[in-house]
C-alpha cells in the first residue's frame, strides 16, 4: 500500500496498464513530455517512450477519432481531454462513432478505449473549466460513464475501464485531485495522505464498473451522489426510506433525474416523502459566484430536513 493523491492513483493506473499490456497507448494535449496540465501522465513518456505516450495537436475530435481507429485495429487507447469543457469537438466521434461501432458493425469492429477528462468545479475556473457534462454521455447507448470519488476507486476503476471491451468515458472530479472536499472552500483543505481512501495498492487491481459504493450505511435516508459531492453530502448528513439525490451538474435533465426515476420505480411504495434533488443551478457556471452556484452543505442539509419532515 502507498499513500496517493487521486492524480498519483490515476498515473499509477496508467503505469500498471502500460506495463502489463503493450497495446495500451496514452495521448492527448500536453500529456507527453510535460505529463499533462494536471500532471496525471508525468513521467510516463520517459518510462514507455513516445510511441506509447505522446503529445497531440489541439484537436479533440482528432484525439478521439485517432483513438477509435486505433481501438478498432486492436490497441487500447487511454486518451486525455484537457478539460471536460473541451470535449465538445469530440462529441461526434464519441457519441456517433465510438459508442455505436460494435452494434452497427455487428461486432466486426469494436472500440475498447477510455476517454479521460477532468470534470466539475470548485477551482474558480469559470464556465470553461468547471462543467459537469456526465448526462450528455449517460444519455448515449453504448457508452459507460465513470466518476470516481477516491484515489483507491480512481485507480481501480481506471484499470477496469482500460480493460473494458467497450468505450468508457472517465470523468475525474478535479476538485478531488489533491484531497477530499467537504464544501467549505475557505477552510483548510485535507490532503489525501490524511484520508483512508488515500491508501492505494501499488500494483494491479480493479474496481468493477457499474456498481455503487456504500459510503455510509444507515436507515433514515438514502443519499445518492457521486464525484465531489460525496464528501459535501457526507458532511451534511447527520443521520440517515427517504431519498435525496445530489450532483454538481445543472438540474434539468441531469443524471439526478435518472436516479430519481430508478428509485421510484423500485421503491415507490416505501417512500415516505418526495425525493429531493440538490444540483447546480440551470445557469452557465459562474466565476465569481462559484460558491453560490456550487451545491452547498447548507442546501443539502435543508433538503435532508425537508424529507425528514414530510
Amino acid at each position, binding site marked *: 500500500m502507498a499513500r496517493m493523491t487521486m492524480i498519483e492513483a490515476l498515473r499509477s493506473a496508467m503505469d500498471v496498464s502500460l506495463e502489463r499490456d503493450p497495446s495500451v497507448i496514452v495521448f492527448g*494535449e*500536453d500529456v*507527453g*513530455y*510535460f505529463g499533462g*496540465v494536471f500532471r496525471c501522465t508525468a513521467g510516463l513518456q520517459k518510462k514507455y517512450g*513516445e*510511441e506509447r505516450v*505522446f*503529445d*497531440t*495537436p*489541439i*484537436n479533440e*475530435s*482528432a484525439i478521439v477519432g485517432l483513438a477509435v481507429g486505433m481501438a478498432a485495429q486492436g490497441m487500447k487507447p487511454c486518451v486525455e481531454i484537457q478539460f471536460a*469543457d*473541451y470535449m*465538445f*469537438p469530440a462529441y461526434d466521434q464519441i457519441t456517433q462513432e465510438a459508442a455505436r461501432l460494435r452494434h452497427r458493425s455487428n461486432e466486426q469492429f469494436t472500440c475498447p478505449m477510455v476517454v479521460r477528462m477532468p470534470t466539475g468545479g470548485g477551482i*474558480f*475556473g*469559470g*464556465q*470553461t*473549466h468547471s462543467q459537469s457534462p456526465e448526462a450528455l454521455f449517460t444519455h448515449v447507448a453504448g457508452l459507460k460513464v465513470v466518476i470516481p470519488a477516491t484515489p483507491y476507486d480512481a485507480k481501480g476503476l481506471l484499470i477496469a475501464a482500460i480493460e473494458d471491451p467497450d468505450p468508457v468515458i472517465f470523468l475525474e472530479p478535479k476538485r478531488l485531485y489533491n484531497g477530499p472536499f467537504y464544501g467549505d472552500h475557505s477552510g483548510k483543505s485535507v490532503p489525501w495522505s490524511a484520508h483512508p481512501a488515500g491508501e492505494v495498492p501499488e500494483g494491479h487491481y480493479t474496481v468493477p464498473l457499474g456498481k455503487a459504493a456504500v459510503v455510509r450505511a444507515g436507515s433514515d435516508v438514502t443519499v445518492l451522489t457521486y464525484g465531489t459531492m460525496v464528501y459535501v453530502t457526507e458532511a451534511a448528513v447527520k443521520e440517515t426510506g427517504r431519498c435525496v439525490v445530489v450532483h454538481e451538474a445543472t*438540474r*434539468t435533465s441531469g443524471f439526478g433525474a435518472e436516479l430519481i426515476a430508478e428509485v421510484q420505480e423500485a421503491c415507490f411504495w416505501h417512500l415516505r416523502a418526495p425525493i429531493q434533488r440538490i444540483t447546480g*443551478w*440551470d*445557469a*452557465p457556471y*459562474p*466565476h*465569481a*459566484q462559484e460558491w*453560490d*452556484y456550487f451545491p452547498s452543505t447548507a442546501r443539502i442539509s435543508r433538503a435532508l430536513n425537508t424529507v425528514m419532515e414530510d
Partner: protein
Amino acid sequence: MSEVKLSFPHPPARPDQAPDFSNIEIPPVGSLPVPSMDIEGHDCWPYAVGMIRVLDDDNTAHGPWADYLGEVSADTLRQGLRDMLKMRALDRRMLNAQRQGKTSFYLQCTGEEAIGCGFQRQLEQGDMNFPTYRQQSLLVAADYPLEALMGQLYSNDLDPLKGRQLPIMHSARDYGYFSVSGNLGTQYVQAVGWAMACALRGNGKIATGWIGDGATASNDFHSALLSASTYQPPVVLNVVNNQWAISTNTAVARGKGDTYAARALGYGVPALRVDGNDYLAVLAVSRWAIDRTRSGHGPIVIEWFTYRAAAHSTSDDPSAYRAKGEAEAWPLGDPITRLKAHLIARGDWSEERHVQAEAELLDEVVQVQKTVESHGTFVKPKPTAPADIFNGVYAEMPPHLRRQRQEMGH
C-alpha cells in the same frame, strides 16, 4: 517487422539544453515587395514562407513596406510605444495581483504587444475583433477604460461582465472586442460569419479573427478558412505564432507543413508572414491588409511570427518544458526595445523620456488599480450579487429559473 515509423515532432531545445533557433530563417529587410491588392492565393507563396520586415538590425526602417507606410509621424510611433509600455505595465501589475491572491487567474502577452497594439490602431470604429485570451493588447490600444478592464480581472462590481467570466475573458462590444470564449478555435469561424453579415448588410465594416499557432489544429480553423474562401467576406484572419501552446511546441501543430500562412494557400486564401516583434511591419501589413479587405478584395491570412516570452498563464511553469533563456535568445528581439531604439535613432525619443514614460504609465495603471481594488478583491471580497447568475441566461427568465432563484433565497 516493417520499417514504417511514426514521427513525433520535437522542440528545438528542452530544459537541459541551450536555446536553439538556428532552424529559423530570417530573410533580410526588403526581401518582399508590397503586392497588388488583388493578389491571389496561388501567387502568395513567397509571402507565406518569407517574412515581411521593416525594422532592420541597426534600428532603421527601410524597404518597400517602409515606403508603403510613407512618412510615419513621431507622434504615431510614440503612441505605439506608449501603448506597448502600458500593456506591459498592466500585465506585470496584474500578474503580481494574482500572486498576491487578489484575483484567481492571469495571463500575460509579453513579447507579443506589438501585434495587437499596432493592428488595433489601423481598425475603424465598428470593426470587430474576435480575440483569444491573449489579445488584451487590442483593448489597450483601443483605449478601453482601464477601470473596466481591471474590474473584469477582479470580478468585482466594476466588472462589466458581473463576475461571470474567468479573468482575461473580456467582452467590449463598443471597443470592437467580441466576448472571449475559453474553447479554442470556435471564434475564428464566427469572425467569418460576422464579416459575411457585414457584407450582406453593406455596412462597410470588417471582422478580424485571432488564433494561436496551437489552436490552428482545431477543426474550426479549417472551417473558417474554407468559409472565407467560399464566400470571400471582408475578414482578416490572424494567426499569432508564438512558438508554444502551453508545453507543446509549435512543431506539433505545424507538422510537415511549411508555415501557418502557407496552410491558407491550399484554401486559395492569400496569406503573408510577418515579423510580429517589429512594430513598423505590424503597422504596414495591418494597414495594407485591412485596406484590401475593406475595399472588397476578400479575406486574407496574416501569420504573426513571435515568441511567448512569459508563462502560458499563472497556472503554468515553462521551466519544466522549454530551454531557459529562450525569450532572450529569440532572434527577432523584443518589440518594445526595438521600437524604442528606432525612435531614438530617428532623434524622436531618448533614454530619459523612455524612463519617464514608463514611470507615467506605471503610475496610471497603479492609480486605477487602487480604485478598482477598493471595490473588492479575492482577498477582500465585496458581496457579489449571487442571484445575478440567473440573469441573462435567456432574454426573459423562464419559470424554472425563477423558482431556482427563490430556492437560492433571492
